[in-house]
């Protein structure tokens, strides 16, 4: 560090013999508008290697599970041709298993991108970055909203792209077993969009948890608890209440929204959408209110 001299000429205009060139309290340039804060959050997002690795993992997992699922579905349909028991099971599924193949890795995509949502917010607090962030944007909410937008858009676009890619990869495999998958069919498009929205919602819930808990491990554990432990626990706990309540868990809102026809004893599609929406809005609003109130 040899070049640590102070260069007085750096102050440009007001260094030229006018020490009071800047009137007290007056800024001589733009402040943190939402678009500028958004740009800042995008820079923060793309300059973390760990984030990019998690995004890459999501693509790999979704595409990989798509291919595996295509192969498994092919095996199943082959068995159905010779085994009447398998044929009955195959028919019970509506005969169209292939349409669910591209989204078969969603459970893992939601875990990775939900955790990413937690990490992007909790790491602000664990690393002390939050002090820099909120010194630059002292109103705080714009920074939170910008980060939320980046997280949700990324989760949506990445999931959609991965699911589409998984579909492309599984086409030749399914074809090998004589199964047809039309990626442009309305059901395929619906599956892709609903799952992408769902993963974006999970990422938003993760970010809210990261902001509320401010601790990476705690946030991720809460997320896992909500999406992986609660559904199992609710099934095991006896009593009608938990059977009913289970329908309202965020992880159980996808099937009703993508069902070809309404399955009895599940939510209607619009109800499921509302439930998922509530699962996003309530934690996010709570996180934003507390972020504004609490000390950094």
């Amino acid at each position: 560090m040899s070049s640590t001299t102070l260069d007085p000429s750096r102050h440009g205009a007001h260094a030229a013999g006018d020490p009071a060139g800047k009137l007290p309290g007056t800024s001589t340039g733009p402040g943190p508008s939402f678009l500028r804060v958004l740009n800042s959050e995008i820079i923060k997002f793309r300059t973390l290697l760990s984030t990019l690795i998690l995004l890459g993992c999501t693509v790999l997992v979704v595409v990989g599970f798509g291919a595996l699922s295509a192969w498994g579905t092919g095996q199943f349909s082959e068995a159905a041709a010779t085994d009447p028991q398998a044929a009955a099971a195959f028919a019970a599924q509506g005969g169209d298993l292939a349409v669910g193949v591209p989204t078969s890795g969603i459970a893992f995509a939601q875990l990775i991108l939900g955790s990413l949502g937690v990490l992007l917010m909790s790491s602000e607090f664990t690393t002390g970055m939050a002090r820099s962030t909120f010194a630059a944007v002292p109103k705080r909410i714009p920074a939170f909203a910008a980060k939320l937008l980046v997280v949700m858009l990324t989760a949506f676009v990445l999931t959609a792209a991965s699911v589409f890619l998984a579909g492309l990869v599984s086409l030749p495999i399914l074809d090998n077993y004589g199964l047809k998958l039309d990626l442009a069919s309305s059901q395929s498009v619906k599956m892709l969009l609903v799952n992408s929205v769902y993963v974006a919602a999970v990422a938003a819930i993760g970010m809210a948890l990261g902001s509320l808990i401010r601790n990476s491990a705690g946030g991720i554990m809460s997320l896992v608890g909500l999406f992986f432990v609660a559904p199992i626990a609710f099934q095991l706990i006896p009593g009608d209440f938990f059977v009913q309540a289970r329908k309202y868990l965020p992880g159980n809102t996808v099937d009703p929204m993508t069902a070809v026809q309404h399955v009895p004893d599940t939510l209607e599609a619009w109800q499921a959408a509302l439930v998922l929406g509530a699962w996003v809005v309530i934690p996010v609003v709570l996180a934003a209110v507390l972020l504004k109130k609490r000390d950094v």
Partner: protein
Amino acid sequence: MIEARGLTKVYGDKTAVAGVNFTVEAGRVTGFLGPNGAGKSTTMRMIMGLDRPTSGTVTVNGTPFAQHAAPLRDVGALLDAKAVHTSRSAYNHLLAMAATHSIPKRRVHEVIEMTGLADVAKKKVGGFSLGMGQRLGIAAALLGDPQTVILDEPVNGLDPEGVVWVRNLVRHLASEGRTVFLSSHLMSEMAVTADHLIVIGRGRIIADAPIQDIINGKGRIRTRVRTDQPDQLMHLLAGDGVSVELQDNELLEVTGLDPRRIARTALDGHVMIYELTPLQASLEEAYMELTKDEVEYHSLIATGAAAPVQSGGN
């Protein structure tokens, strides 16, 4: 200009800052001095709107920080050298900060050059030494070319060359008419850097005066006098603004008179004195004196090597 009025911060049952009032003027370096845990960082975080005051207000140029239209362009702060994501490079950190205010890349490069980080700017901050972290924090503080600069313990972890650099930097910034507010728990550093000192202890302002006044013990000169006739000398010296303290039967401590006047008075009164020692307190001593009742964590080993053996029963 930074103005705190009745600024208070209470964490649970602990009062970190207890209703402080102070003004940090533009155009000079104001030191914020206090022992660890005195409330310096809390006060600075409240200035930056990161901690919400329990009561009272603090404004920068008349406006609370959070209400400034372009906060980074008005106030730059180094609050914590580790206020950076450890996995991001210094350059990208500054770039992201700059983006919030559309500060051009040119300026990012400028502050990197200025703080001597050019060689490591593309490296992850997690691998930085404390000194490099401080330089990055200072670079971030200067990013918006702000009128007010707040630096919390900026010389912590810097090598001697870096300490001199910070000293010159803050003096230069103040000479340009900027408001510079600098905290430290090191008196010696303040003595050579600050023009004005605000001393804080246990959340209360103990002193707020020009640095020279504080070195002089608030303008008071103390002199130790030894004489065979202390009572007579005490009587002779008594007067306005003079206080004489009898320390033992031959030793007096006189405050408010310079040694020459004491000697002259003694001579005129035919009192023999055989010691006359001006007690020019060093800033360190003045500081210790000011804060001795205010430090939160007293060292257990108070009186050198012999103490632990003797204080075994404590």
